[in-house]
């Protein structure tokens, strides 16, 4: 049985190969850290409900893309129908941070006439000792692009809920204010059903810091 949701948002997750895109999404959607995962070829799909206010649920449809540069010509076709995006880099891999600009350019040039609300995510923040990108410079970069910045860890379940929920809230606010509108032929935002009753048994909020592995 499909739970009742107010809106459906399509999110796209991008960033260099092996920055941990799939692991972050799987932590968010399955509540566990996948020790072993194979490289994404093309796209993978995930979904989860998020409750942003009591009784107000958003269904997130998450597109997990292949990170290798070669696949960009494929993945670029998927920007247009996304309303939000998580742009990941690995805080222990400087190059993945340097490529953030390219990813953003790539997305911006292929999303016309729409736009994507991006969140910059510094991933693998549990590996503090191997950090190659400081929080300050990442925040500065995010600020320059008008994005929020969050540091996450799929392994230790740090800020994973926070990252997705914040992005969802931001998009929700833009939808409510009318800056983002539902359009025929655009998959970014879809309207669901207004819930009359809140089914407490279908609560989706999961504890953030639990490690199930």
């Amino acid at each position: 049985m499909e739970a009742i949701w107010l809106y459906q948002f399509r999110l796209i997750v991008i960033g260099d190969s092996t920055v941990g895109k799939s692991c972050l999404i799987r932590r968010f959607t399955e509540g566990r850290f996948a020790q072993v995962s194979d490289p994404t070829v093309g796209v993978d799909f995930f979904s989860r409900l998020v409750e942003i206010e009591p009784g107000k649920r958003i269904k997130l449809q998450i597109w997990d893309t292949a990170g290798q540069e070669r696949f960009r010509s494929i993945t670029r076709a998927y920007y247009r129908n996304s309303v939000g995006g998580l742009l990941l880099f690995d805080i222990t891999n400087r190059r993945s941070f340097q490529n953030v600009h390219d990813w953003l350019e790539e997305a911006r040039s292929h999303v016309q006439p729409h736009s994507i609300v991006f969140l910059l995510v510094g991933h693998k923040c549990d590996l503090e000792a191997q950090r190659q990108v400081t929080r300050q410079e990442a925040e500065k970069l995010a600020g320059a692009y008008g994005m929020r910045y969050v540091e996450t860890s799929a392994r230790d379940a740090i800020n994973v809920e926070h990252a997705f929920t914040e992005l969802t809230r931001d998009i929700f606010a833009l939808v409510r204010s009318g800056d983002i509108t539902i359009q025929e032929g655009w998959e970014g935002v879809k309207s669901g059903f207004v819930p009359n009753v809140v089914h407490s048994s279908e609560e989706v909020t999961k504890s953030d810091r639990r490690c199930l592995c």
Partner: protein
Amino acid sequence: MEYETKSGRAGPGNPTSPRQSVRKNLDFEPLSTTALILEDRPANLPAKPAEEAQKHRQQYEEMVAQAKKRELKEAQKRRKQLEDRCKLEESIGTAAQTWNQEILPHWSTVCTSRRVRDLWWQGIPPSVRGKVWSLAVGNELNITHELYSICLARAKEKWNTTAAPTTETETEDAGSSDRESSLELIKLDISRTFPQLCIFQKGGPYHDVLHSILGAYTCYRPDVGYVQGMSFIAAVLILNLDTADAFIAFANLLNKPCQMAFFRVDHSLMLTYFAAFEVFFEENLPKLFAHFKKNNLTPDIYLIDWIFTLYSKSLPLDLACRVWDVFCRDGEEFLFRTGLGLLRLYQDVLTCMDFIHMAQFLTRLPDLIPAEQLFQHIAAVHMTSRNRKWAQVLQALTEQKRSGARQPGAESLS
């Protein structure tokens, strides 16, 4: 009122039960009834009325009888399974003999015969699989073992020169060439190839072999380089062939038009392949096709993964190998036919799903896929559309694209 007693049976569960000894004399002992004991009431309580005792006895006997029936059925099922397994082993044995003694020695003359093709469809025995694949894929590129050694040596040289500086002074090379990063990517991907098999990971028996083949390929075809998905193809070949022969098969396999189109990510050509697929999709499964269209589920969403890895990531490995068998026999057409077979097999489930569920289902197929059933569905797919075969449809679409006015929106996949 049934008690599961698998564990209690062997242990000193209730050694004093008088029924236990009685049952030991039975030929067939239903496991699940050993804990069903009909007892009279303890002596300190008034005895059951005769009527009630009779009723309980009857209920008890019914329960035992039912349990026996069930056990008997299960035992039969187990015996059947064992028989099937033995039969399968036997048939693999005889098939291997046939392949080894009758087919392989006369390959070029018999490989297209009806009998061989039929045997081929049933699956190549694992012991000769590599040999048959090698022969079927061929070596159009004339790659020798020496050439492989040369490519490997060159790859090793590169690893040594790039491995040293990356640890310390990796600073201002933001615009790193795709080639360099692909060497790095290979390393990262090797351990992510069939992770559940635990043989390609660092320290595993095939880690270095996989590394070598992929590295050698980037030197053999620097214009193609390493593309994610390749590691799965190389891994499947390694499981069936010696290193150098695996490399030869790998390079030749990737050199086929369809694989080249995908691994070079020739987007326009990929779209032509998807369009051809849709022609046969609509022809074979019009209802499902309409459902996909309605939900904007385009073939790129599931076909990219299936075609790139030749199903080795999406199907259980033994089943993927059977797909490879016929792919080696029939060529690229079979990859798309398999895709249609999968859609046909799961047609009913898919028709009840919305976009995201279908996308999730197709990119993560069930763990248990009935092999025989899938092959029946694949066999039922007609690969002709208005009297045109796959190659002709593809050809027509390619020409159409080349000559026809290219719409500006045609580049978009969605």
